[in-house]
């Protein structure tokens, strides 16, 4: 068994609040990413998925404290914080942000912003960097003569493509994408997703897609982890998540997503709201809203258990399964 490319183990993130307390945004999550795999991190607002993703790149604000390990090729890159994680930024792990407007400096040309990481990391410079930047632009579907244009001259979809090109500038092995298509029309979204899939295949990139949009994950990813209240509720192949979910939240989340062809099937809504993360949580975090909650749920925290082939879930309904999950 080869070491997975990226292993996240027992990742925890706390934020200091101005009022003095602490917000425990990520509460001990673990997952793995193999080379060339497309993995989805799914959840609604506040579940901690974006914070978890930013932790992998070490892009947390000064009021954050992190614990746990993020292992790249077996080496924990969070061992000494900024010092150990920054050498890997963009070289090994790169990121595409939501709403690429935020990713670009409005007063510099798009081409120069793709060349910049190349020069900073000593990969290429001058004319060579320029040529590589143009090739990248072509690869993402932007004519290379646009390299001298400014970000505001690009449409939303083009800017997102350019942001992807910028992320690939240093030939990373892992691409993190934070809601890459949320602000885009459905047709442009399809184009961008198709691009990401083909790039992942061509460059043998591992893709970590962070989103609240379940159908996108269903169409693009092989495996996914569903997060709730800072924890992993369930993680499995995307097929298993839809057809044989082992956590009520996963099942209800799918049921709450309308589908074109589902006809008369009632769209579910989940009453209540996620628990506050600035206080300790007793028992299962989803219990107050769960339609299958029973005796142990309010008081005992469910452990993440292996319930199938590479399929883990944290729910007391699986308590009959003997062994706890191995990380």
């Amino acid at each position, binding site marked *: 068994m080869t070491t997975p490319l990226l292993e996240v183990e027992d990742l925890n993130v706390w934020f200091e609040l101005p009022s003095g307390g602490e917000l425990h945004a990520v509460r001990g999550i673990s997952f793995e990413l193999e080379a060339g795999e497309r993995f989805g991190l799914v959840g609604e607002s506040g579940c901690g998925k974006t914070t978890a993703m930013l932790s992998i790149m070490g892009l947390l604000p000064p009021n954050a404290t992190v614990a746990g390990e993020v292992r790249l090729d077996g080496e924990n890159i969070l061992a000494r914080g900024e010092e150990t994680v920054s050498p890997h930024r963009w070289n090994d792990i790169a990121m595409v942000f939501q709403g690429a407007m935020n990713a670009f400096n409005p007063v510099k040309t798009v081409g120069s912003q793709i060349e910049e990481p190349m020069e900073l990391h000593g990969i290429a410079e001058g004319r060579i960097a320029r040529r590589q930047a143009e090739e990248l632009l072509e690869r993402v579907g932007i004519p290379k003569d646009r390299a001298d244009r400014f970000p505001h001259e690009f449409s939303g979809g083009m800017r997102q493509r350019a942001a992807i090109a910028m992320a690939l500038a240093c030939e990373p092995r892992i691409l993190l994408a934070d809601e890459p298509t949320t602000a885009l029309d*459905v*047709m442009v979204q399809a184009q961008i997703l*198709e691009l990401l899939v083909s790039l992942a295949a061509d460059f043998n990139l591992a893709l970590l897609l962070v989103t609240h949009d379940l159908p996108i994950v269903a*169409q693009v990813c092989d495996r996914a982890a569903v997060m709730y209240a800072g924890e992993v509720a369930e993680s499995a192949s995307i097929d298993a998540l*839809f057809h044989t979910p082992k956590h009520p939240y996963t099942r209800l989340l799918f049921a709450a997503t309308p589908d074109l*062809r*589902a006809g008369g099937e009632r769209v579910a809504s989940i009453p209540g709201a996620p628990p506050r993360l600035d206080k300790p949580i007793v028992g299962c975090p989803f219990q107050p809203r769960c339609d299958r909650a029973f005796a142990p749920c309010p008081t005992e925290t469910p452990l993440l258990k292996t319930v199938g082939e590479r399929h883990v879930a944290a729910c007391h309904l699986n308590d009959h399964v003997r062994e706890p999950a191995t990380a």
Partner: protein
Amino acid sequence: MNGSHSLLEVEDLVARYPVGRGVVGAVTRQPKLEVRAVDGVSFSLDRGEMLALVGESGCGKTSTAQSVLRLIETSGGSIRFDGQEISGLSTKELRPLRRRMQIVYQDPYESLDPRFRVGATIEEPLEVHKVGSRQERREAVKAALELAGLTPAELYIDRYPHELSGGQRQRVAIAATLVLGPELLVADEPVSMLDVSVRAGILSILDELRDKGLAVLMITHDLSTAAHYADRIAVMYLGRIVEEGPTREVIENPQHPYTRALLSVVPKRDPRERGTPQILRGETPNSIHIPPWCRFQPRCPMAIADCKTVDPELRRPAASTHPEHRAACIRV
């Protein structure tokens, strides 16, 4: 109240915005440019019916909805509300009509004045239209809160918006429209900024109100939501309706090539239904330079030479299975 007309009848509606030419353009006397946001839209809406206007950004769906409520100026066409032509009415003349047609906006975090308590927000329409006594207004506010699913009403009346979740705020916004007892409700992307688990709760309110006789015009880019809740769907592209009809018919038997492409790229929940998405190249062009022929022709996978000679009208496609199904394409 005459019985023979629909509550809302829109015909050949046009709304255009001028766009700057820049200094060079002005000096060289280039023709003044206009964005043709709504470029000849016709539809009708009955009481107890939900019509979804769907399309991508720039298609004109929001502009159409705002034009219908006379919130933006129109440049042509007719809008008849309950038989009365309202496209030429002044602000003063429109005032009494505002009681009967209301709008719910997309952003629940911005829709409510942060300095108004929930009760004050919902009471405001009653104050504006000088309806009811103090006591009657309080009763109406409570009733509206309960219709919007915020019960017990006493728990919410004195809260400030920042104390409520997104879903609750949207319910308050809906309650503020219901308090006057409107006949037409325009919902502009009512749930797109809310978490998935909360959406059905909000949409089911609109669903029930529709069952009770409210006419709902829903604007959305989410075809799946439209497919689930709307009675009829109208697909818009560059300021025109390119296909319309009963929901089941449009979703299961789409005829216009744009509708077909759009439906094919909507991601499905079931990973086993990945299908073959028909991804169109390029993006929707801007609505400034619209050719006099079929506006979808440049991106259409089915375009032929004749498509550049005529601007197709909405008519019943040959393969349709419902008499009210229309598509604007010469090839179907």
